[in-house]
């Protein structure tokens, strides 16, 4: 009864083209954002920020980027981890080599470097698609894994192979405490989510989706596949690169190439598929699911064992995590191949009609 759009008439195309045409959606999202900025810092403790909220925000950003490419443009990638790495290491190099740059500029330059590499490694997409393309993106993954491990210049010849940053400030605002880190990531995520939404509802987003759905027809109505695909690679890599820089700078503080391994790439793709391909909100759902599930299993399984008086070893827990995680993914794909976002959309649809079934 509450979720109704009765009486909300659109009198201009502008009003009809806004992000949330239904007023209730608008208020809900504003409320969530306000709560995230004001309520959460008052409620959450340090563990919660470090283990859940900050990783969630940063990986949501990365998943958003991957979703633009995979979900909207239909170009599958298994190399997202590499582009996070490029973002992180490029930002690191800008930071130490041009010390006068402010942090935001460093992060964005990291993203831009990643975007440039995204275009380069996106070139095979002009020739191949589907699984072949997935393998081409794996090439990027393994190449950069190797490059950051073996080429000393990237890590400023650090003897241990790991690099670190500290004393981060944005316009004089110190962001070393977990709360401030959280707020900083949240602000960036909100801006990027808005950008993603704008792009996908504008001409560029339509070109991406056209290429995804029927590339020959798209070409016939005047879309250049090269421009559409490479722009998707660039924008996506930009998002992923900025997320990578945040992951290194803000979340980890010091890192080595293993932080951005092929497992990270798979994880991001899981987020997108479980969350919902071609859905902005789905990227958030997917990130939340993938981050919370292992933490939950880690806590829950030993507790369950205690209940029955069985001590479960850490190895057994980690194996069980593998099994449950894998089964859930398969289960999800069978039950709802369009992801959590589709479940969300269906329930909203139902809610609009509630309490009348039809």
């Amino acid at each position: 009864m509450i979720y109704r759009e009765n009486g909300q008439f659109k009198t201009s195309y502008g009003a009809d083209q806004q992000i949330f045409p239904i007023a209730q959606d608008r208020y809900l999202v504003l409320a969530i954002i306000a709560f995230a900025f004001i309520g959460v810092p008052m409620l959450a403790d340090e563990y919660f920020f470090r283990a859940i909220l900050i990783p969630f925000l940063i990986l949501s950003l990365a998943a958003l980027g991957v979703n633009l490419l995979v979900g909207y443009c239909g170009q599958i990638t298994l190399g997202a981890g590499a582009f996070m790495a490029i973002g992180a290491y490029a930002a690191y190099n800008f930071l130490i080599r041009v010390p006068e740059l402010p942090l935001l500029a460093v992060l964005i330059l990291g993203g831009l470097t990643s975007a440039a590499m995204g275009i380069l490694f996106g070139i095979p997409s002009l020739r191949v698609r589907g699984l072949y393309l997935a393998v081409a993106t794996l090439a990027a993954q393994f190449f950069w894994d190797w490059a950051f491990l073996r080429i000393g210049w990237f890590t400023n010849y650090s003897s241990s192979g790991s690099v670190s940053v500290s004393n981060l400030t944005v316009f004089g605002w110190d962001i070393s405490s977990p709360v401030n880190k959280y707020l900083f990531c949240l602000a960036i995520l909100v801006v990027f989510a808005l950008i993603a939404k704008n792009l996908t509802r504008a001409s560029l987003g339509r070109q991406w989706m056209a290429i995804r759905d029927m590339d020959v027809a798209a070409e016939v109505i005047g879309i250049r596949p090269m421009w559409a695909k490479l722009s998707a690679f660039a924008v996506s890599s930009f998002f992923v690169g900025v997320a990578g820089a945040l992951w290194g700078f803000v979340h980890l503080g010091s890192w080595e190439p293993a932080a951005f391994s092929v497992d990270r790439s798979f994880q991001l793709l899981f987020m997108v598929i479980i969350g919902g391909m071609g859905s902005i909100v789905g990227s958030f759902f997917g990130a939340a699911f993938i981050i919370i599930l292992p933490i939950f299993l880690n806590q829950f399984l030993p507790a369950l064992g205690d209940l029955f008086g069985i001590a479960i070893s850490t190895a057994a827990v980690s194996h069980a995590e593998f099994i449950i995680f894998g089964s859930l993914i398969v289960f999800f794909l069978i039950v709802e191949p369009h992801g959590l976002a589709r479940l969300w959309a269906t329930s909203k649809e139902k809610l609009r009609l509630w309490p009348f079934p039809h």
Partner: protein
Amino acid sequence: MAFFLETLIGGLMAGMLYSLVALGFVLIYKASGVFNFAQGAMVLFAALAMARFSGWANAALGGDSLILANIIAFIAAGGVMFIVAWIIERLALRNLVNQEGATLLMATLGIAYVLEGIGQTLFGSEIYNIDVGMPKDPVIMLESVFEGGILINKEDFYAALIAAALVIALSIFFQKTSTGRALRAVADDHQAALSIGIPLNRIWVIVWCVAGVVALVAGIIWGSKLGVQFSLATVALRALPVVILGGLTSVPGAIIGGLIIGIGEKLSEVFLGPYVGGGIEIWFAYMLALVFLLFRPQGLFGEKIIDRV
């Protein structure tokens, strides 16, 4: 020259092993259009089963007959792989028919996680050895041609022989038996195959079983070379460029692709590696496949896809 040849032969041997893993990919992709990322996990699972069964059987027989123990273990592990194949088809893939490629790919990644978890829960997660009695001593060949001859690992040689035999057996199975014919029919067109009465589900179970056996053989060979451990699951990632190079749907492609990648990796590591800091094997194979893709998108022996409007 002798050193070059040695490297080349080493590459060929390694390539043969890649071919074995790649073969598993091709079989399943051909018959069901699923790109099976779980092939690596299947290799690990099979190798774990083999290693443990062989150990147990050997203990039960009092250590008298290694060969008998291995035969029992092989049969048992093969049975386990059949069950695994059946469960995968039954619980996962049957319910995912007609989904998009990306969804299927993700599903097999999920299956890979499950297999890795179950395998280690059942069989333990230490490093095990598989001893199938392959001689490990190196031999020196062609002493008359080159000074000092060429050093070849006997084990590699036998492994390559086994792989070649398996490939020939599979080719015969595909070309000559009625099941093989049905498999090819399914690969060409699911619907048409179904309409002439080929039971799709059974065919898929068979394919997964065959892939399971291929994984077992690959697992035994890799396992006896390197020991059975978790990292075995990553051989799938090493074999991927092979499939791409050879073409996703071609059995000979998997073989030739494997050899090319094997040689390419070894030669590049030995002759190029020192200049760039080494460790280039893994990405070199991918770059090779990538460069290749740009010129021949469907791979060496893959079928060309023609778009119709």
